[in-house]
């Protein structure tokens, strides 16, 4: 009855979302280069993928930048959130506006403004600048993830700790931090994801020597998709699927317990 209609609609949307991905994955097994003709099943693009220096290097860059930027942003952002929350209303509002600013700026403007900055200060664009840029756009998201947890936190636990003889730094480490950990973890993961996927900002803040995956794909896509890219997509999709399903399973298990 009605339920089938609704489920069918959802199925249709899912079909729309997944068709290109499925096509990509199928193409990755296409022995031939042609995009329209199926020339047999093969793993050759997968082996080519791992031998392709440019792609492997880009992968390395992407992963390292994402990890380092996420960690740096998490540290910076968590400290900032703790500090901001302790401010009085006026300075707090100013800080929050400043935090919201980069998020409302379109990524192209952020990227360009940073490019101008680096060129102006004569810093060579490359790995370092890309890293700095990633940290810059990640930190506000960390702050946004941690603040709600800070607000939710019982104000009095910090004072209770002081009452029981803890110094402020001890109280910070042993009382505040444990309670906001979920927010910190969320923020870190969010930052990591954003860095992995970023294209525009990386495009403007790096040099042609140092490419991350996204910029590499861009430069190749203008010419035409290489089948190795299909293999890459397939692998990314698979790892993502497995990761998310595991996370989903574990979340389900904890709620059941």
């Amino acid at each position, binding site marked *: 009855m009605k339920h089938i209609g609704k489920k069918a609609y959802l199925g249709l949307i*899912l079909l729309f979302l997944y068709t290109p991905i499925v096509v990509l994955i199928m193409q990755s097994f296409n022995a031939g280069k042609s995009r329209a003709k199926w020339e047999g099943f093969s793993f050759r693009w997968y082996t080519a993928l791992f031998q392709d220096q440019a792609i492997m290097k880009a992968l390395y860059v992407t992963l390292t930048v994402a990890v380092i930027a996420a960690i740096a942003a998490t540290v910076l952002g968590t400290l900032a959130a703790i500090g901001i929350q302790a401010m009085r209303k006026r300075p707090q509002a100013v800080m929050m506006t400043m935090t919201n600013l980069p998020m409302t700026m379109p990524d192209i403007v952020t990227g360009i403004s940073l490019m101008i900055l680096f060129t102006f200060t004569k810093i060579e664009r490359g790995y370092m600048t890309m890293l700095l840029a990633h940290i810059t756009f990640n930190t506000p998201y960390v702050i946004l993830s941690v603040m709600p947890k800070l607000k939710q936190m019982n104000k009095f636990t910090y004072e209770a700790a002081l009452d029981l003889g803890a110094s402020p730094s001890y109280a910070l480490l042993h009382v505040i931090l444990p309670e906001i950990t979920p927010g910190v973890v969320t923020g870190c993961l969010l930052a990591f994801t954003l860095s992995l996927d970023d294209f525009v900002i990386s495009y403007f803040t790096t040099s042609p020597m140092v490419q991350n995956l996204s910029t590499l794909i861009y430069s190749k896509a203008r010419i035409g998709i290489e089948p190795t890219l299909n293999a890459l997509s397939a692998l990314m999709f698979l790892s993502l699927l497995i990761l998310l399903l595991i996370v989903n399973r574990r979340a389900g298990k904890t709620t059941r317990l």
Partner: protein
Amino acid sequence: MNQNLYLPPWVLWLFGVLFVGFVAYGIVSVRRSNGIKRSFFASPYTVWMVLFTLLPCVLIAYYAFTDPTGAFTLDNFRNFWDSNYSVNKIYEQMGPDYAVLVQRGTVNIGTLVYSLWMALLCTVICLAIGYPTAYFMADRQLKLGSTLVVLFVIPMWMNFLLRTVAWMTLLEDQGLINTLLKALGLPAAQLMYNNGAVLLGMVYNFLPFMIFPIYTALTKMDNNLLEAAQDLGANRLNTFWRVTAPLSVPGVISGITMVFMPSVTTFFIPRILGGGNTMMFGDLIENRFLTEGNWNVGSALSLIMMVLILISLSILRKADPEGEGSGIV
């Protein structure tokens, strides 16, 4: 492209003074209270933001209002209004080779309007498709579970360039869809390098960002309210119209924000799927900066774009004053 990177010394002095002032304030406050106040944990972040967010913005503003020699001018903005107004008289003076550059330096209200129009279309389509999707996903009677949500999340996490590029495989002249059409004996269609392809790419990329805020708002809704409405005599349609829809508005606003803004500023999608035929505003800005090396006009355009975004954001914020519909975290 050599850029004249002249920056007046007073800017540097300003920042120097501010920095020293900040440190001095810090020292004085620490002296006054016992030890380091908690609010100082935010200082590294503050310094970082000043350097990497505020300063770049100032630089953009600076370039927007100057010409390559560093003199103050409003020409960059005039170029925006009047497509025939040639900017960079310096280039003109440099000779015929640069005349080409001058001619290409035209524009742009048209592009902006086109971008806004495409963004609007994309948002409307995403809303039309996405609202029912979110509604059915949140429907408790269907008992769909979180696996479905995960399925919708996965495409969002896949690299969006790859996903857009994937459409090339389908839409190309020798692509899959055309191959299929040929096999069925139908004429091949020009599916790529036009407005339709760009729109398709945009909707495809941004649809999940419309679905999730609405889904979040709908699931947060107290089920008791629906029962109360039915208890008071509202049938299914009435319940939706009078209770569910108004309460989902924050989510809708959030979704619109997350779709409209990136739609206006995207440059990758029109470039890949539209070839050179569809120039959108983001495209244009990138063009100015990297292809033409005209930082001044590019900055002016960026500034215009930022103003537009801020305006639309404040309009949207009026509709959702409490900001309940945040779909990010």
